[in-house]
């Protein structure tokens, strides 16, 4: 069981969360080219090692989190809220 330290709820089983995807993907502007969008949504670095990724605390506070995790050992290095302002608030409160 991966245990994720949600900055709002505390440490919880990963089954409370939904895995999102690679957090490093930068989505282009809505009117960007097909080629830019294709790269962003279809192509992945697929890191074998530490990767930044998104998780949604679906069965909890519903925050989207940026988790740095090893895709080899599942060890988590860091967790923070994706939204910069929420990140600031949760950091201040902790």
């Amino acid at each position, binding site marked *: 069981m991966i245990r994720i330290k949600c900055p709002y709820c505390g440490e919880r089983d990963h089954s409370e969360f939904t895995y999102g995807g690679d957090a490093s993907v930068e989505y282009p502007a*809505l009117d960007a080219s097909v080629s830019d969008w*294709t790269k962003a949504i279809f192509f992945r670095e697929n890191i074998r090692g530490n990767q930044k990724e998104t998780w949604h605390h679906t069965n909890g506070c519903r925050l989207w989190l940026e988790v740095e995790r090893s895709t080899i050992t599942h060890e988590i290095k860091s967790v923070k809220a994706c939204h910069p302002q929420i990140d600031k608030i949760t950091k201040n409160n902790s």
Partner: protein
Amino acid sequence: MTSIRIKNYGKINKDKVIKFTWDNKEYSGYEGDSLASALLANDIRIVGRSFKYHRPRGVMSCGVEESGALVTVGSGSKRDPNVRATTQELYSGLNASGQNAFPSVNFDFGGINNYLGRFFAAGFYYKTFMGLPPFEWGKGTGIWMVFEKIIRKAAGMGKASREPDPDSYEHANDFCDVLVVGSGPAGVAAAQEAANQNLNVILIEQDSLLGGNNLAEKAFDSSLLQKQLESKGIRVMSRTTAFGVYDNTVVGALERVTDHLSNPNTFLPRQRFRTIRAKYIILASGALERHIAFNNNDIPGVMTANASRQYLNRYGVLTGKKIVITTNNDSVYQTAIELHEAGSKVTVLDSRKNIKIDLPKEIEIHLETLPFSINGSRKIESLDVCKTSDKTNKNTIICDQVLVSGGWSPIVNLVSHRGIKPVWNEENLCFVPGEIKENITVVGSAKGIWNNEDCIQSGIVGANEAMNSLGVSKKTISHLSVGGWSNPINALFEVKSNKFPSKSFIDFQHDVTAEDVRLAHREGFVSVEHLKRYTTLGMANDQGKMGNIIGLSLMAEQLDKTIPEVGTTVFRPPYTPVPIGALTGRNVDKHFRPLRVTPMHQWNIDHGAKMIDVGLYQRPWYYPKKNETLSDAYIREATIVRKTVGICDVTSLGKIAIQGPDATELVNRIYTNPFAKLPIGKARYGIMLRDDGIVMDDGTSWRLGENEYFMTTSTAAAAKVMSWLEELLQTRWTDLKVNVTSVSEQWAGAAIAGPKSRDVLNECVLDPNKITNEKLPFMGVLQTKLKDGTPCRVVRISFSGELAYEMYIESDYAHGMMDILWENAQKYEGCLYGLEALGALRVEKGHVTAAELDGRVTIDDAGLGKMASTKKSYIGSAMRKRGVMGADDRDMLVGFYPLNEKETFNAGTIVCEKNNIHGQGVGRITSVTHSPELGHWIGIGFVKGGLEKWKDVTLVGADPVRDKQMEIKVVSPHMVDPEGKRMYA
């Protein structure tokens, strides 16, 4: 072997006699017995049959590693195959029987396989059974499948019940600072040390009694230990097996709650699956004694030496009268002494020379001596022995039992679950755990530490490691060294036989022999994983606990490599087998998934609704009048809606409150059609695309205020859309000031559809003047009150194409709303309608749902291209026409009529050209209904190039899986009221 119960031995309760049944015959044992000890006490030698050769099997161990005494316990729906008799506690009325044998394990026709063994070498089945013997003539799989039937019947071990499992199971969750696995000396020491520092400690023990191998000590008292541990606040869980170690020091454990009881209380679950989240794990899982491969080393009466000591001191069973103990290490000598003291004639064969051991003179000891071959087939008659230096010269020792100790293997399984490879210790001839980088440590004999005092010390060190790691201490850690015997062990894995076929077994259940390993080598299966898969070594119920290392050593010998160079297979969870029922817990039958019902669920049922599952929801399907079929009912309901009015529960639609200064910007970015100028008090139908430009969902959004919207989604996509909006706002568009809240559960909704819907509504609301065509035009939104004063929201919206509204109310008031709506609808001869009629009405109008929007359909394909704005950018706008997605021969939404109006068709029918009924055809029918309005069956679906291309062509609907084929024509999907006048009425 002649095994008997003896006086003054054992921790069993001799005051309590327990009757049990073995192979339909009654026997007795004592409270505290295992099934195996009770069988031994009754001198029952043959208790099983092996997998392949059906050789007789006796009790070979005293624990979870047992691969001989696998039996079936219970009967009927509570029949449990493959139970290890060694770990099954005896209870009154226990009913056990032999398995994998006909008619019985005592006399088994399958024993013929034993004589065919020379042909049934490892992997022989890969070389034949393909075609007609002897040269495998033929093609295809036909002949194999004839053989397969026979093979399947012969294979398998016990027979399972086909009845639903009547027992209940439950899940439990535990948290602790330190979890100690195993209650032997090391585990106990570790738990106590950690508890002394006020850490929250759980100690789990698979056995019913605490003590681990201390239970083999005559003087050991387990109940004292239990009290001692509990007094320190340690949570002790016995009969609980840590079956797997998972990420973040989470352990899966199985607690057997009633498997040892004859009449358990019915409120008790049979077993509990515990998920234990520990901050630190100390594994004190012990070690297992190995066998030695030599000819006929599987005859009933062969047992590990330590098992015999367990039977003596724990169960008071002396397992033989004339016992030969054969060993390569020191661990057997205490056993030899105790067996001798208990009255057996004991002879020890030690493969070593120059060892220092003090033994009573009555115990014969032969150094540099090996077991060569056992004589006997159903029981041991004698043992041929030879000198290590001269294997041709044999002596025969008359005996009834052969005890074996080929060394000890630390139980590294749980560490292996973490992907940590064990390390070979040449001095002690065993694998010990490799380096662990997580909050896990291993102590005691699980680490290859043999002596009791050393194990205790090792447990304390482990506790210190845990406390250091948890930040409660800063102690210096000095690990104990592996080993501890006074005379070094020497390598003895196999005594080679000169016979062929030899019966020198290394996997007793799967009948894998030393010869099989050499055959595997000869054929190139030299990697350990290939060895395992080719010979099935280690794939039986014990998962290689006994045989793996012997197999490795034999392969190493063939390859002229060392054991660590050959490697080791990866132990996978579970450590011991876990019933699927326990893992499932209470989530069985109707509780497999939660049931979602709408707030008017009971109201619907009270009003005669037949329900249907839609995702996790149950929704009204139809409301039959008496004797009506589904078809009768939905046609009546749909007809009434078009004629007067109908009421339908639409609560399952997703509902999302969108609030904030950027609410408009959000909805404008996620819908394809423009929302920027939607006035307050108006709603709009909208389509959302995925990033890749494919339709994600359709729904409506109502503007309730300058900064507030109420969004509805389809039932199926409700959760997905909610998560999607949250993702966009929290990860991509973090500058937008807007908040989204799921209010699906807060609002109950009903559709009121039909030409009389306005009249009905006016009777229901407090101020009827507000609901007129002018004040509440099509797509108008009104926040008002029901006659009883309850606030509600009304939107004029239509899925049926009729004048129609949806009314939403706070969920707690749903019954009241339905009462009022229904009371007034009846005044207009209205009806309640369900999902089937709803479907019929929308198909008539060509409205799409999930049946059409299958994740491959574009907005243009669905005929909704007009809703895709060209003036703004939105999610999916860049991608929706990429490449062939903009082509004009795509599958586009159309309507279908059967050419012959009396004909029916089904959804899932493939549309083909008349002269080419093949492949994917030119289209497909996705939804069908009988149209009450048109008086015949209609459908919607897709066809390549759309209506324009096919409107005058007769096509064929091919539905071979339902033996149907019909001629069809393509029409506009808007089949009823195509101009859409009615909804504006």
